[in-house]
């Protein structure tokens, strides 16, 4: 009994030390807690009435980087969160090379380096998965849609393309639509952000082109499923390819890809007037 009490006191001491450490590492603990927000919270956040009422924004489109007249400095808190999505996972391994390279594993390792580079630039990073799980497309989008002032970057490895090249995709133009309540349907959440996604995509692609010769100079459009339901500036970054003989060829690209994404997002930051509420339009 005595030894049990002693053991308990030791455990309590360890817990208190851990608690002090956790408090000191506040931002990190926040990241992990935000990586899996409870679904009802996401839903309610996504369905809140925006502080800026419909009609407050001018009807005419705003120029790049300028705040609409309805926005106050408090609302323009700025881009601070990057939702990073290592695609696939679980039973879905994505593209597979003849040498056994799996897209789901490569992107998870890339995500670690991209996260580090983004945090170095001062961004808070939310990962859609941290292990070998496979959230649905909508669950991944929901993690971005619940944030206020986030951008979304999904990482992929292709089966095709010149080795050691990287391409950025933005979603193809979708027709705009609102329902009877003036709300944007979930399956077209990307619509209001298409222009911003183009700007973000071009910024990242320009930096990738400098690092990986043979890559395009501007972002390309494609009907990427993951991007369509994301209510934030969103891009897909795809590197080539799983067909390489040696996995090291891909791993060598990771620092360059990470740096290009981080610096591209940082360059994009001043031009993004974030919505007042999560899920709101820019």
């Amino acid at each position: 009994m005595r030894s049990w009490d002693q053991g308990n006191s030791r455990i309590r001491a360890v817990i208190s030390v851990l608690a002090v450490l956790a408090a000191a590492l506040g931002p990190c603990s926040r990241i992990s807690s935000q990586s899996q927000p409870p679904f009802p919270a996401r839903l309610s956040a996504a369905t809140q009435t925006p502080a800026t009422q419909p009609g407050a924004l001018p009807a005419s489109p705003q120029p790049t980087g300028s705040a609409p007249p309805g926005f106050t400095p408090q609302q323009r808190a700025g881009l601070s969160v990057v939702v990073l999505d290592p695609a696939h996972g679980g039973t879905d391994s994505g593209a597979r090379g003849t040498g056994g390279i799996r897209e789901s594993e490569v992107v998870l390792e890339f995500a670690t380096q991209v996260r580090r580079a983004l945090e170095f630039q001062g961004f808070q990073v939310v990962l859609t998965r941290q292990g070998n799980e496979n959230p649905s497309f909508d669950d991944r989008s929901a993690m971005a849609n619940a944030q206020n002032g986030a951008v979304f970057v999904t990482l992929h490895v292709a089966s095709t393309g010149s080795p050691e090249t990287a391409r950025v995709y933005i979603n193809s133009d979708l027709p705009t639509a609102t329902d009877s309540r003036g709300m944007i349907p979930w399956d077209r959440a990307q619509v209001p952000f298409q222009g911003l996604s183009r700007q973000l995509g071009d910024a990242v692609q320009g930096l990738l082109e400098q690092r990986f010769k043979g890559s395009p100079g501007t972002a390309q459009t494609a009907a990427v499923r993951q991007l369509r339901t994301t209510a934030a500036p969103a891009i897909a970054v795809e590197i080539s390819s799983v067909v390489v003989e040696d996995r090291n060829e891909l791993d060598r690209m990771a620092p360059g890809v990470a740096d290009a994404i981080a610096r591209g997002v940082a360059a994009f930051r001043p031009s993004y007037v974030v919505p007042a509420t999560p899920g709101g339009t820019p």
Partner: protein
Amino acid sequence: MTPRLRVWLLGALLAAVIVGMIYFPILRRRVQRAARIRQQSEEQARRELTQTLTANPGEPRVKATVFWASGADDGSLAPSTIELPLSNDPVLRSKQVLNTLLAGPVDVELRTLPPDAVLLAFYVLPDGTGIADFSEALANSIPSGIQSEQLAVDSIVRTLEANVPQVRRLKILIHGQEVETLAGHLDLTGTFMVSAKTAQMPAQTVAPSPQPATKTAAPSTDKPATPATDKTQAPTPGKLTPATPPGKLAQPERKP
């Protein structure tokens, strides 16, 4: 045995060996060729079983444009002109050009679709929406990736655009079912605009049953909750603010 007979026998044996050395490689090549032909015949037979009449030799031969890969690694397509006895019926014509696309170019490296994929059915709705139903091999055998999947869909869309003007939009099904993505990346839940400027654009989802064309330019939608109030308008390219008044996100209509 006399020495003379022995010489004749040795000569005959030598001649047989020489003939064998010449003939056996030829025979080997013929066997390999026959195996290849049998393999092709099986694939051809499968296609013939799963498709109806696609070519009528009585039709006049016209130049069809089929889009295969250009050979560059940038995921671009290149047009190839082929003379085909194309039907005037849009459904038959669509089947003919898509089967030609599936058959592939001479250079197999330029294929955009898997060799074992089959077009199971093709329909055209009165509003100009074409529905192409492919076998599961299209989704299972295509190289996974945004670039390769986009190239496949683009080749289908542009081939239809070049040859079948009656098809304005395209919906792709896999074995009769709507699927979320082609091979994990490309969105197949919507329709693709069959037009030069918007070939990569997934539009609204297709109506579940054939409907007559409406007066509005925008295509009908299959969203049952709000079909009458759906306000659609063309996006404004290059603008950084939304073309529509600011709104908020609705709840997801479908959770996988």
